């Protein structure tokens, strides 16, 4: 094969699946739809595996980064030259393994979960479409191709959130997601234009080379570009101030929440920042902003997660919070740590959603945690795996989340004075994380069943297997260790910051984090197991705080009042009624009125009576005759008036 990796197969296999299931899938038997729908991600995963032999221990098949470019350019006009070029390097390898691997598992899970749905083929075609765009995003060798994937995953997300389109809440959530993402994309686009204007190219490697060639080029326009890209990232990765779409996105089918809104798509922002890390390294202000946004988001989202009762919404806020950690990692230039956390988060958060899906499935569609409880007896395997995931997200060793979160917090602590504050926020958030996660754990699985008794649906094998595999990954996914992981990724995103650090400091810091996580567990244990009345009492004692958290700080309402309402009302009353109808309309009709009026006067002659026309004709002919025949010059001269030649 001439050493060719056939990277193009990775996105195109899912695309073929999308076309097949989207166009003819509705009329085909379910097994064939399933076969095609699963073969596409599996094929892509196998191609990734064959390309990533180097990572798994075999000798690297090719030297990284490996580039595949379509000989025909995509867009070529004037100042814009963009190719279809796919790049495989350490960063995209890790990301692809996650996307296609976890993606495949969730496809398998979906076969069981969506079995009874009428839109089975449509569902799989959308899911394949998502994988197509996500792999394009990851493999893209230039910013514009990345933007293709970027917008495309937003589209897939829109389609899948609104999958049950007959529900108003679902289609509303879909639109909200798409438009909020578009607001972010607006920033991204501006960033792309600025890149084009300042670098004359959109290829990552060329941009990186230009920046590396001149280490003194710092800040200035680079800060602005990086901030624009960051704005795009906050949209896609649901960070402050654009996180509002993600909780609503839980209207989609649960496997979709697992794949798109937890494991892969929402991490695209982190991936993008890592991909453009050279730029961010040259833009200190923007990088600092990344860290601050990350820390703030991870804290606020965690507090909001405390007061939710819908199991999927708790997980949604925890996703936002965990993404905040990743942004924090990027913001302190610990890109490897961010990607490391991205990976472990993909494992445990996908698992949490799949487990939640199994729980919802078992409860016959119920999502309210207040009506659950005592499920561990009924679904022991799911319970065991979910426990692993809860431990992982809370950062309890030796589960995967411990290693990755620890790496981020350690890097944050090393990041100068302000890094200490960021670390503090991160550690407090770790406590809150433990609070809301163990609250979920207790309310769902432990205690005694609340609410009316549902007849229990057994979990099918296709749903059970992915949960088990992800459970294992949640446990061992972090054992590779940030050291080895960082060295591998370091080829692409630079080494982990270690200045001023020591093993002792690292141990102390992680000891504090672990202690706080356990403390959180103990508090919840006290409140929910030993003293079940206490939570209600606490709510009663702090009604304001609870209401604030329960309503998510009223951010949605605030945006509605400041942006959406004024836009709609202004458009309707100021633009439509006043400008268009009153001013422009009346100006136009004034013109029309003048024309009509003059027409009305002339119209008198147009009686429609042939004889009157003929009379006018005759009269006019007579007048002409009179004019020609009568010697006017002589006649007028008789009156003493001289015209024309008569003058001389």
């Amino acid at each position, binding site marked *: 094969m001439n050493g060719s990796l056939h990277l193009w197969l990775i996105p195109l296999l899912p695309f073929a699946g999308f076309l097949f299931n989207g166009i003819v899938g509705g009329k085909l038997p379910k097994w064939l739809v399933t076969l095609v729908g699963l073969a596409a991600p599996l094929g892509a995963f196998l191609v990734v595996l064959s390309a990533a032999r180097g990572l798994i221990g075999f000798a690297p098949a090719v030297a990284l980064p490996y580039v595949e470019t379509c000989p025909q350019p*995509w867009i*070529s006009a004037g100042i814009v030259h963009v190719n279809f070029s796919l790049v495989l390097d350490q960063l995209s390898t890790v990301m692809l393994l996650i996307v296609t691997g976890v993606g495949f598992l969730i496809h398998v899970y979906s076969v069981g979960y969506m079995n009874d749905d009428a839109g089975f083929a449509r569902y799989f075609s959308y899911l394949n479409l998502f994988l197509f765009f996500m792999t394009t995003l990851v493999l893209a060798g230039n910013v514009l191709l990345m933007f293709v994937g970027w917008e*495309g995953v937003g589209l897939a997300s829109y389609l899948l959130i609104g999958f049950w389109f007959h529900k108003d809440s679902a289609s*509303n959530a879909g639109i909200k997601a798409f438009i909020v993402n578009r607001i972010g994309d607006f920033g991204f686009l501006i960033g792309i*234009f600025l890149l084009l204007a300042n670098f004359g190219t959109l290829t990552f490697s060329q941009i990186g080379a230009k920046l590396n060639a001149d280490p003194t080029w710092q800040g*200035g326009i680079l800060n602005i570009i990086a901030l624009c890209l960051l704005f795009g990232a906050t949209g896609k990765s649901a960070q402050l101030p654009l996180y509002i779409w993600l909780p609503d996105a839980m209207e989609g089918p649960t496997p979709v929440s697992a794949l798109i809104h937890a494991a892969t798509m929402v991490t695209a922002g982190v991936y993008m920042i890592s991909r453009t890390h050279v730029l961010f390294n040259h833009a200190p202000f923007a990088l600092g902003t990344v860290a601050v946004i990350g820390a703030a988001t991870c804290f606020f989202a965690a507090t909001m997660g405390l007061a939710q009762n819908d199991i999927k919404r708790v997980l949604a806020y925890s996703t936002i919070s965990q993404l905040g950690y990743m942004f924090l990692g990027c913001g302190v230039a610990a890109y490897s740590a961010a990607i490391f956390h991205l990976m472990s988060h993909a494992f445990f958060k996908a698992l949490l959603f799949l487990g939640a899906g199994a729980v919802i499935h078992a409860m016959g569609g119920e999502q309210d945690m207040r009506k659950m409880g005592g499920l561990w007896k009924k679904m022991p395997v799911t319970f065991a795996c979910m426990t692993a995931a809860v431990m992982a997200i809370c950062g309890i060793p030796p589960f995967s989340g411990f290693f990755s979160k620890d790496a981020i917090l350690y890097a944050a602590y090393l990041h100068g004075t302000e890094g200490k504050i960021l670390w503090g926020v991160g550690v407090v958030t770790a406590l809150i994380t433990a609070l809301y996660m163990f609250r979920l754990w207790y309310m769902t699985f432990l205690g005694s069943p609340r609410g009316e008794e549902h007849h229990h649906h057994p979990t099918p094998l296709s749903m059970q297997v992915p949960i088990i595999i992800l459970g294992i990954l949640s446990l061992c996914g972090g054992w590779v260790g940030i050291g080895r992981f960082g060295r591998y990724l370091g080829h692409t995103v630079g080494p982990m910051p270690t200045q001023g650090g020591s093993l002792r400091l690292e141990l102390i810091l992680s000891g504090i984090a672990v202690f706080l996580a356990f403390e959180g567990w103990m508090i919840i244990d006290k409140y929910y197991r030993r003293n079940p009345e206490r939570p209600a009492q606490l709510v009663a004692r702090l009604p304001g705080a609870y209401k604030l958290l329960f309503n998510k700080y009223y951010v949605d309402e605030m945006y509605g009042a400041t942006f959406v309402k004024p836009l709609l009302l202004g*458009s309707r009353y100021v633009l439509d009624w006043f*400008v268009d109808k009153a001013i422009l309309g009346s100006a136009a009709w004034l*013109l029309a009125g003048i024309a009509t009026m003059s027409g009305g006067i002339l119209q008198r002659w147009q009686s429609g009576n042939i004889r009157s026309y003929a009379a006018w004709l005759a009269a006019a002919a007579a007048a002409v005759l009179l004019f020609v025949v009568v010697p006017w010059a002589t006649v007028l001269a008789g009156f003493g008036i001289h015209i024309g030649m008569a003058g001389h």
Partner: protein
Amino acid sequence: MDAINHSILTLILLVPLAGAILIAILPDRGKLPNWIALITSLVTFALTLHLPAHFVAGRPGFQFQVNIPWIQNPAIFYHVGVDGLSMWLVVLAGILAPIGVLASWNPIKERRKIYYSLFMVQQTSMFGVFIALDLMLYYGFWELSLVPMAVLIAMYGRKDGPKAALRFFLYTFIPSAPLLVAILWLYARTGTFNFIALQSLIANGSLPAIALSWCSLAFLVAFAVKVPIFPLHGWLASAYSEAPVALAMVIAGKLGLYSLLRFQVGLFPVQARAIAPLLIALAVIGILYGACMALVQRDFWRLIAFAALSLFSMIVLAIYGLTLTGWTGAVYQILNDGVVEGAIFLLLGALENRYATSAIGEYGGLAAKLPRTASFFVITALAMVGLPMLNSFVGEFLILSSTFTEVNRGWAVAATLGVILSAAYMLWLVQRLFYGQPSTMAGRVAARDLRFHELAALVPLAVLMLVMGLAPTLWLRTIQAGVHPPAQKESAVLPQTVPLHASVLAVSSREEGQR
């Protein structure tokens, strides 16, 4: 082959005209006019495909030219030809003709003969506008494109045809008069209507500058109304909601935008540069104004009208940016808008034909009943909002990037805001039409999904959207070779005359970009 190359443009003009005559002669029996119109337009489309097949990409100037004297005095020539700028527009007009016939298949039930013969005359005039290189000939086709349109709107309007036709008439005919005066003045001064000759004569500076400014203004207003450019869009919404679908597809945009490129900026580059700041401002206002207006419309034709205002304003922005990238993007975007608008009109026409209303509020939950319509609608809507991989993205990206890097960042940022708003109004429209629970009307009226003839028109358009999004170089190469924006102003060449009002940001970034 030379004989074909020589006569192909004439054939393209004559075949639809012959179709019109044939329809007029033969009796108005059953679907006979439909079939004649369909066959004629398909033949014409096949003929237009000859152009890209035999176009020599590298050769400068016009190709397939014919230049023979027509009238001795005044010296009017039958002078036609195409270059990279107009060739694909001819093909676009060619493909929209059969699609327009298919779109009229069901809605036009009476007086088919008059409808289709006037429709074919309208086609001829569009081809004529795109290929005429003699100003008088061009003017003849330009006027000819307005007359059948007004008549058809008046006769076949949905509710209030005559009123909309009157509006259209007033808006478009009145500015045509100064256009004629300007053309005649040019003739009086130069003794020629030949576009190429006039172009060089004006460039020589042999004509008085003030008079040229008035001429360019006359050209500008006539074309700006036809595009339309804000605030001259008053006729658009009523024309869109009244005109038969096939005509609404072609009523706005293309002709005016092409004429701006070819005859306004093409003949009067200096004057165009002088007035460009104003037009850039109007274009950006148009983008945002149209998008905001589209958000709050309750009738889907009016919504599409304002969406179109927004989309066309984007092209105007590119035209008056006067850059190569922008012009290439502009021509490409004219093609894209033609395809996308064609599809959206077909779909909305299909809906109105089934449910007999264009009030958005009456609709709801159609996706379950009309899944194919919904799928095509979503694809078209996504193309319209500029989703990457679909066609409009390429055009919009070229336009915005050129505006951003070479014109003005502030306006470009404002224009980019349109990206958000377009997603909002289009997706909201999709939601109100197709999602949610079926509305009472949707439950009451039994409607079938897209029929064969509708699919026959929609599938090619959908495929085109994808192909034009993925392989734009097929088109861009010829377009780029064919557009000639006026040379950059001297200030760009001589750095000491950088205008003072250039933003600090732009200057500093340019310096940094050079490092």
